[in-house]
């Protein structure tokens, strides 16, 4: 027997292993249903071992054709449709549209109505972000924050419901103000629906509770090693990529862009309130979590100031004709919605409905980055990254 060289043995063994474990690429189909997608999205990925390549999102399962539908609807009917674009913050969707119509009609919305709009918009933001703060740790395997977060979210939704009558689809805004009270038909003197008795005190109370639950969630999540390991340094989006893809909202701010449409556009009187723009450092999943988390606290601040500052009484509806006709013109109004920039390009030819309504929704641009950001990531990171983008498929497909 000849002695075999030890190196040769090892070499032979390695060669055998690599033959046995030779990996083949496969195509992985995720969806059209998955718990982390908040709607129906399909991803087709080429998977080599643990890494995904050429990820192709397939969208359109929720496409309801709102842009076409709005061409055959009257202006007051459209608010009922656009509620359902981003249904997690339905109230906030209505604002840029009614503001666009009011701009073309040159209406001045009464101050109290503007404050009501602002308070409810911020509550919609809080409820949307609390949904994210509940769902995101759950997607990463931590179930507890969900119970804290959804408990307070329910309270906020109850408050929205007490004013508007709807938790998700309020349809509360009217061109020129807010909704007429129950029972006041078009033939009688219209009376706008004011805030229910005790609403402001309850809102103040609910905001204190939201602030408290933020502390609890912070305790649960911030020091959690698993969550930190799953999110820090994962899914980094540089600021140039954010701009080129039109990614907006908290995702953009997590990448270090200090920009918030509430500070630059005048669709609601945000300039009267003190609030900060939370900005992330690295643009990773953790920063996106952290920015939304801080935005809840800032929204709480805004609501608390607005509750103190709201005019005690006054009209809630500008003088509008019975049949709303919007004068000819074109305008683009955009707003800082919970998911990012939401805007409507409204083209009117003077009729009862728009000639063309382009809906710019935040999630559409936000997930158009998926093929870029998911290139070469680990398969489990797909969930961490997609969850951190916090999109709603209704807001993608419209």
């Amino acid at each position, binding site marked *: 027997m000849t002695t075999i060289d030890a190196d040769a043995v090892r070499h032979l063994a390695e060669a055998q292993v690599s033959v046995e474990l030779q990996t083949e690429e496969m195509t992985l189909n995720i969806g059209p249903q998955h718990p982390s997608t908040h709607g129906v999205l399909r991803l087709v990925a080429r998977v080599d071992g643990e890494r995904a390549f050429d990820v192709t999102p397939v*969208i*359109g399962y929720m*496409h309801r*054709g709102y*842009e*076409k539908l709005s*061409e*055959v609807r*009257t202006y007051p*009917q459209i608010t009922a449709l656009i509620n359902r674009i981003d249904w997690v913050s339905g109230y906030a969707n209505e604002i840029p549209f009614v503001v666009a119509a009011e*701009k073309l009609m040159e209406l001045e919305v009464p101050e109290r109505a503007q404050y009501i709009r602002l308070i409810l918009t911020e509550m919609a933001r809080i409820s949307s972000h609390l949904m994210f703060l509940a769902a995101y740790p759950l997607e990463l395997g931590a179930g507890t924050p969900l119970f804290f977060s959804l408990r307070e979210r329910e309270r906020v939704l109850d408050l929205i419901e007490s004013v508007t009558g709807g938790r998700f689809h309020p349809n509360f805004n009217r061109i020129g103000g807010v909704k*007429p009270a129950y029972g006041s038909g078009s033939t009688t*003197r*219209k*009376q*706008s629906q004011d805030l229910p008795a005790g609403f402001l005190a309850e809102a103040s109370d609910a905001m204190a509770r939201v602030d408290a639950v933020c502390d609890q969630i912070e305790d649960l999540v911030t020091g959690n090693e698993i969550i930190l390991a799953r999110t820090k340094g994962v899914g980094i989006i540089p600021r140039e*990529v954010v*701009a*080129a*893809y*039109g*990614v*907006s909202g908290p995702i*953009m701010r997590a990448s270090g*862009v200090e*920009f918030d*449409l509430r*500070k*630059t*556009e005048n669709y609601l009187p945000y300039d009267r309130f003190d609030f900060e723009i939370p900005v992330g450092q690295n643009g990773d999943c953790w920063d996106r979590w952290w920015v939304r988390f801080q935005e809840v606290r800032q929204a709480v601040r805004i609501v608390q100031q607005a509750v103190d500052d709201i005019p005690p009484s006054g*009209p809630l*509806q500008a*003088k*509008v*004709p*019975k*049949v709303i006709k919007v004068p*000819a*013109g*074109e*305008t*683009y109004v*955009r707003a800082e919605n919970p998911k990012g*920039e939401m*805007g409507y*390009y409204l*083209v*009117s*030819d003077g*009729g*009862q*409905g728009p*000639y*063309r309504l*382009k809906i*710019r929704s935040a999630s559409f*641009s936000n997930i*158009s980055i998926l093929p*870029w950001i998911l290139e070469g990531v680990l398969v489990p990171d797909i969930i961490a990254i997609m969850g951190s983008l916090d999109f709603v498929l209704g807001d993608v*497909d419209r």
Partner: protein
Amino acid sequence: MTQSPPESETVASSPGDTEPAVDPLREFADSVADAVNGEAIVAFDTVKVKVPADRWVDSLAIARDHLGLVFFSWLSAIDWANETQAGDPLSEEVEERVEILATVADLSEGKRVTFSTDLPHETPVIDSLVEVYAGANWHEREAHEMFGIDFRGHPNLSHLYLPESFIGTPLRKSYPLLSREVKPWPGTVDVEAMPETGPSTENPEA
């Protein structure tokens, strides 16, 4: 008709801004129009700059590189048609065309510009913006399937929302809304035109 809004009025700027002499939005619009050699329209707080179709990509590249408009907001189109299968026809005749719009913005002061160009109504073709703004990819695919616009140089001009086998361009005015074909609506129970002189709603008071 609505191409150039009836009044290019001065814009209600934020309170505290009390100098009526120079409208900052108008000034900004003119500076953009000068830079890209286009025509600026300012109305209702919206700056629209019209450029010729052959300088579409160049104009947006200038906007991105020299005007700080780095944020790609959206791209879409308007079908200006005199006959409609869905929705009310225009109140006045227009020159039939497809107007393509792209809105870009900055990320500091909140400036935004909607670039616009006109394409032939029957065969709209234009160069793709994907090389300038990566985000134009999906927006152009949407405009392609909804309006039938051909984007030259687009890496993957397939359907975005609709199945690949879908025939037609749904956001064209010539495309009927099928549910309305089955059941005409608004009917008698829906909103009817009111007399022009009808009394308007009174200001709500208790």
